[in-house]
């Protein structure tokens, strides 16, 4: 084949009648170690001619003409350019790219280099990942980049974090989850923990397209940002290598919710109870939280094998994770596999890459109702009653011995008599082909086909004797299938015009993705009744054309433009196609003559961009169509002696469309002292229009009282600052540090079709305490999810006076109009500080994460910190110990007393490793490591954890502090 290729080259270049051609060999080595570098790309500049180095770092390139420029490039290293003048040997020493300007960065449907980027794009590679017992890989990123919040999941094993790019305030109801693309395949993100099927060990890098001008290549799915995940691959011409990586960890809850102790409870009941209520007291002293939580162990094993061949490489990994939760009977088990195979044909002109990854997950969810029950259940009551009712667990009963269904259930009974589990099978994969089109140097076609398949089989088994049901137990079985398939194809053309000092990189393509989701369940009750909700099946599809042109002049001036036209099945056929796009420019000041030779400034790039993007997660697939839904068997209606199944016409908005946003971004990338110090600052301003809002329709006009339609606008703006520094680097000691800080601001600017200053806003944020109460509101002129509360009045001693609030509107009485918008769960700014060091064979790192100006509604205290709660409904109920402080007689749900500053600084993790290097006479290399997760939290917040979803703290599965020990062996 090689000779054929040579002949072809001769054939092609013959008409040009150029001078004699020769070949060159050489070895590429790494500067730091002097060792050979396999897999380095060696190409002749401005051609597609090239090769890669073999395992020994050697290469051979033929058919060269004098004057050809050879470009040596390798990810993470500075590219080298050497002019061929007839040498027979060119040995090259590659230097690791401190400034990483030539680092390849994914940009969606292609890649660029850091120096050519015009938008705010940040890549985090595996060496910077967070350590710890991490089931769902997005947590690897927490605290690592400005403008990206990864809010860690609760303590439930296997659960996923929530990811918010640039504040996550770009939509009120269409979702703020960024689009996640794994090896080119956008994932179906509807399930639980969309990423927890991916073994963290298989991830090479995350690229975060923060800025809309970068993300806009994803058009209608780009507003909330895009995260591109690249999985690891093997190197070509590499020997067979094994890596075994494993850890064990144990975890305990960080803290418990403060409720009354048994003695405190007894005192309170004796003080306030009627004789009948006092008689209900028991004699035990049980800390129910202690009963339901336990030490949780995890073990995790990964085995990776990789092998490089002449024209191909293979990497396969196998992982097993067994993660217990601190709540008894909660458990996550995952068996995962990942195979990546890359084959190059026809002298690298055709590259075929196949990825398949899959996971089998067994979840045991336990009964999380026990978390709330443990706070409420009477601490003076025994765990077991001594009789056989309710499985032997003590439960509150009515005078006739039947269960008191209003009282709290025995927390241990809830856990022990319930078995709630699910088996998940998930696989994603893709086959990608890159082909260099003959005769047109620089033109490449790529086709990528991918799939995503998830099947979840759930079983919730409640024993007949359990107090959790009044139906003599039940077996609820559910099954859901989500699947999607993708096809992309695009052409990429790269051409340099040396005479014009110009370079063009253009891409144009087509994409189609189709989603299908289904679910059904059946509930067989212990009393013999079978309940079947109407199964659901739905589908949607997105067809797109996209293009991008990058132009650079003299490596100084860069322009990039994206366009994407999306056509969605979720919208009315008449206007289901819309174009999105963006333009961005950048100026590499460091390449200007006045800075080119600066010893101080190594990088200075000014960027600016504008883009229009969309948000298509509109909640329903056919919201634009008139349609009917069947009622299930339990909402039939009696005609005579028959029960008729009903059909209901659904509300619809024929004009439903995307949320669209316009974003401006300006940024500055800087680097000093050969990028020993580097960083970036970005400012953005975003306006989102046609918000998908769930609003009231004029009564009687549609088939419900409210529907999702496009009305309203909001604005976001923010500042992000990142600083990376390598304060020390020498033979023995290296220290890197990263600091990032992000400021956010958001304001709702419109919510109704017609301006109405009297419109109070849309209540949101349902709370515990009563039914249907909300604590937050979205109002024009304010930020999202502002707490909507009365201003508590205090006595001279500083204690809150029950039921007394400030008369905000001054009308002399306290009415609902005296509620005001007070703070919100959204932080004013967040920061991350992480650092890593190596000292000889030791390495270590830590990550701090902070959030400031975010408030939390302490729903535990608000709903349960009062006397009435103790005596409600013929049983005794434990309450929050805030009652001892406030003495509240009844719930003061809407007092701002319970809206508390939840600013925090957390030391998320500390890692320490020791690298033994070669062991067993060099047959293997060994590193051992240890991590502590959730080391400490500094906060003024009174509740369990200041970081709770939505800013409403209630029945939160506590996060745990984890201690981990691991080994990593290469052989």
């Amino acid at each position, binding site marked *: 084949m090689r000779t*054929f290729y040579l002949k072809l080259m001769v*054939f092609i270049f013959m008409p040009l009648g150029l001078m004699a051609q020769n070949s060159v060999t050489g070895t590429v080595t790494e500067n730091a170690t002097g060792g050979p570098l396999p897999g380095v790309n060696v190409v002749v500049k401005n051609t597609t001619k090239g090769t890669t180095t073999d395992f020994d770092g050697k290469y051979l390139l033929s058919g060269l003409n004098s004057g050809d420029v050879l470009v040596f490039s390798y990810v993470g290293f500075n590219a080298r350019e050497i002019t061929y003048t007839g040498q027979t040997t060119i040995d090259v020493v590659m230097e690791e790219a401190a400034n990483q300007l030539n680092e390849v960065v994914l940009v969606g449907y292609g890649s660029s280099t850091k120096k050519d980027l015009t938008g705010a794009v940040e890549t985090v590679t595996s060496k910077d990942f967070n350590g710890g017992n991490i089931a769902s890989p997005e947590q690897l990123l927490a605290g690592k980049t400005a403008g990206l919040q990864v809010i860690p999941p609760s303590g439930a094993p296997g659960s996923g974090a929530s990811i918010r790019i640039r504040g996550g305030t770009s939509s009120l109801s269409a979702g703020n989850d960024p689009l996640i693309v794994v090896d080119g395949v956008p994932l179906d993100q509807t399930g639980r923990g969309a990423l927890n099927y991916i073994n963290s060990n298989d991830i090479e890098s995350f690229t975060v397209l923060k800025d809309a001008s970068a993300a806009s290549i994803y058009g209608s799915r780009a507003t909330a940002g895009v995260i591109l995940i690249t999985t690891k691959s093997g190197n070509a011409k590499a020997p067979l290598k094994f890596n075994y990586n494993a850890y064990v960890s144990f975890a305990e809850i960080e803290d418990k919710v403060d409720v009354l102790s048994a003695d405190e409870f007894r005192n309170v009941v004796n003080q306030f109870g009627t004789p*009948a209520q006092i008689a209900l007291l028991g004699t035990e002293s049980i800390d129910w939280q202690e009963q339901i939580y336990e030490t949780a162990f995890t073990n995790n094993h990964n085995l990776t094998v990789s092998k490089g061949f002449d024209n191909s490489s293979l990497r396969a990994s196998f992982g097993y994770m067994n993660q217990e939760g601190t709540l008894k009977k909660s458990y996550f088990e995952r068996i995962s596999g990942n195979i990546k195979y890359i084959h190059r044909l026809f002298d690298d002109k*055709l590259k*075929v890459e196949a990825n398949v990854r899959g996971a089998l997950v067994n979840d045991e969810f336990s009964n999380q109702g026990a978390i709330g029950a443990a706070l409420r259940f009477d601490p003076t009551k025994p765990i077991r009653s001594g009789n056989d009712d309710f499985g032997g667990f003590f439960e509150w009963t009515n005078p006739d011995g039947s*269960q008191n*269904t209003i009282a709290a259930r025995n927390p241990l009974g809830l856990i022990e008599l319930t078995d709630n589990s699910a088996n998940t099978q998930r696989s994603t994969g893709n086959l990608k082909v890159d*082909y260099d089109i003959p005769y047109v140097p620089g033109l490449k076609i790529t*086709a*990528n*086909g991918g799939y995503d398949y998830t099947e979840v089989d759930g079983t919730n088994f409640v024993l007949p004797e359990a107090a959790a049901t*009044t*139906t003599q137990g039940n077996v609820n079985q559910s099954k859901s299938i989500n699947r999607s398939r993708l096809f992309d*194809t695009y052409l990429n053309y790269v051409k340099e015009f040396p005479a014009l000092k110009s370079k063009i990189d253009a891409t144009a393509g087509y994409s*189609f993705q189709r989603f299908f989701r*289904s679910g059904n369940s059946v509930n067989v*009750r212990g009393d*013999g*009744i079978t309940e079947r909700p*109407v199964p659901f099946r*739905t*589908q949607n599809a*997105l067809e797109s054309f996209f293009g991008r042109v990058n132009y650079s002049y003299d490596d100084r001036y860069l322009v990039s433009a994206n366009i994407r036209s999306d056509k969605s099945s979720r919208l009315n056929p008449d206007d289901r196609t819309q174009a999105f796009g963006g333009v961005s420019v950048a100026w590499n000041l460091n390449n200007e003559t006045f800075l080119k030779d600066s010893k101080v400034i190594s990088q200075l790039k000014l960027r600016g961009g504008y883009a229009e993007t969309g948000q298509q997660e509109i909640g329903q*697939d056919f919201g634009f169509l*008139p*349609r*009917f839904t069947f*009622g*299930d*068997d*339990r*909402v039939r*209606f009696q*005609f*005579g*002696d028959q029960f008729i199944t*009903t*059909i*209901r*016409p659904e509300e619809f908005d024929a004009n439903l469309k995307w949320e669209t946003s316009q974003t401006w971004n300006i940024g500055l990338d800087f680097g000093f002292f050969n990028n020993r110090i580097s960083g970036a600052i970005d400012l953005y301003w975003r306006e989102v229009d046609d918000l998908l809002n769930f609003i*009231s*329709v*004029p*009564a*009687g*006009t*549609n088939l*419900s*009282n*409210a529907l999702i339609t496009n009305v309203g606008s909001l604005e976001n703006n923010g500042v992000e600052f990142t600083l990376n520094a390598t304060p020390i680097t020498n033979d023995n000691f290296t220290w890197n540090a990263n600091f990032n800080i992000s400021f956010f601001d958001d304001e709702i600017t419109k919510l109704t*079709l017609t301006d109405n200053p*009297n*419109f109070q806003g849309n209540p949101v944020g349902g709370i515990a305490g*009563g*039914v249907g*109460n909300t604590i937050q509101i979205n109002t024009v002129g304010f930020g999202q999810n502002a707490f909507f509360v009365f201003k508590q009045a205090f006595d001279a001693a500083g204690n809150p006076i029950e039921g007394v609030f400030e008369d905000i509107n001054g009308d002399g009485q306290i009415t609902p109009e005296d509620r005001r918008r007070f703070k919100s769960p959204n932080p004013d700014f967040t920061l991350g500080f992480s650092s890593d060091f190596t000292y000889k064979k030791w390495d270590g790192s830590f990550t701090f994460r902070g959030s400031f100006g975010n408030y939390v509604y302490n729903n535990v205290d608000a709903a349960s910190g009062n006397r009435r709660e103790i005596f*409600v409904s*013929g049983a005794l109920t434990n309450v929050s110990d805030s009652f001892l402080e406030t003495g509240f007689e*009844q*719930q003061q749900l809407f007092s701002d007393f319970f809206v508390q500053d939840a600013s925090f600084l957390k030391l998320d993790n500390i890692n320490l490793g020791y690298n033994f290097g070669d062991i067993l006479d060099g047959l293997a290399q060994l590193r051992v490591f240890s991590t502590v997760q959730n080391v400490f939290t500094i906060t003024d917040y009174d509740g369990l954890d200041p970081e709770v979803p939505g800013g409403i703290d209630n029945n939160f599965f506590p996060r745990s502090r984890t201690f981990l020990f691991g080994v990593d062996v290469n052989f």
Partner: protein
Amino acid sequence: MKINYKKIIRNVFGITALSFLCISCDGEVDLNPLTEQTPNNTLNTADGFVSFAARVYAGFAVSGQQGPAGNPDISGIDEGFSNYLRQFWKHQELTSDEALIAWNDGTIHDLNNHVWDAANEFVRAMYDRIFFQIALSNEFIRQASDDRLAAFNDADLFRLKAEVRFLRALSYWHAIDFYGSVPFVTDEQEAGAFLPEQGSRAEIFNFIIDELNAIESEMAPARQNQYGRADQGAVWMLKTKLYLNAEVYIGQARYTEALTELNKVIGAGYTLHNNYDELFMADNDINGAQNEVIYTVPFDGLATQGFGGMTFLIHAPVGGNQNPSNFGINGGWFGLRTFPQFVSLFDDISGNTDDRANFFTDGQTLEIEDAFNFANGYLIEKFTNLTSTGQPGKDAGGDFGDADFPMFRLADAYLMYAEAVLRGGSGGDLNTALGFVNELRQRAYGNNNGNITAGELTLDFILDERARELHWEGHRRTDLIRFGVFTSRVWPFKGEVPEGRPSEAFRVLHPIPSTDLIANPNLTQNPGY
């Protein structure tokens, strides 16, 4: 130059690899719903229309398409709360001296306290539920064009269409009763984005009467339709309700017309059931109560579930020292009690003389010191999930009740007859009226001891007797307004003071919810709000 076959082969190979991937690319973006149905494939059979009509009927009983909850009809409030009958009941009873609630749900106490405003979510939920029902009916009537129905060759479909028009009229009655002048939408307007005009109370009053007159002959004769469906008796009762309250609604006395309709009802063969308690039991569709009931909202512990309606009525009043098993349920909800003002309507509250005094007092105080304390206020034991033979209802779990809700029953017609006569309507006489009232009292007392004399038959007596006979059946607010005492009478916490005080006169109308004022600029708020 010779042809390079190898190159061709190579290109073919590359392109084949690409096309292999392209197999998955069918580019289909015009997709159809899979679970949900389009109008074309649901209303293409007679059964489709029957299912649709059943859904309009079920609008009073269920809260959505998944039982007991999960796919709600309306939003903005907890789905269980959103149930039509539950809202209707709360607005008729919690605003009156018959019921108060212990819960802390949103602004529910504003109903008890007579301080509701346009932002009150319960005021909105009732309004939205009424207009959901109207929109649903309009959609049915629009889809069920005579041409389309004729194709099925099924006369019952035309009758169902008349019944749906009755259901729409019923909801419009609720609309003008609570809210006065409301958006006026009929089947003439396609569902979609438009701003309805506000119809005056009188305009809609006339529309309801016209509709009822138009459908009367198309309805099944009284007592001749399938159980659960409306018939001419229901039409007559609804007309009576409008005429009897016409002074409130349109400022005109229409008592003679009321008596005309009542005479049709009374002559249609309905009979008082011999046992008052059995009217509200789990088997009240078959235990004989059905002969007294003119229009009912049927529930079923297995087939018609929800957290509103009957489930609410059998659970919410139970708690304290009561045993849930005495009601065929799995537990009380510790919510509803009554005021001393209602208790005082009975001379003997034990139930030993008047069977309708169905109080439970053990562990309860008569007086209300704390509206949130379930132990304050006597309990009322009226609706139950036990059958007349003492068996629990069909739902062995004890959650969902079987008892059907009697919206119109003969006893109500008797009392309205007496009232219309007393108010000067012609077409009836006092003697007959006295006889009807005494029939009710004989059933309650089990003997003639409770009989009253002609002299005792006064309007004040009628108001009290309606409370004794029909309490907790969703009549009280309308009755108090018609008798002019809704705002002036006093009970605890009315006006947000413990001893109670009169409320503002404008509270005889609810406010138009602020949500609809914002959505529809054509609307004018009721005075006082």
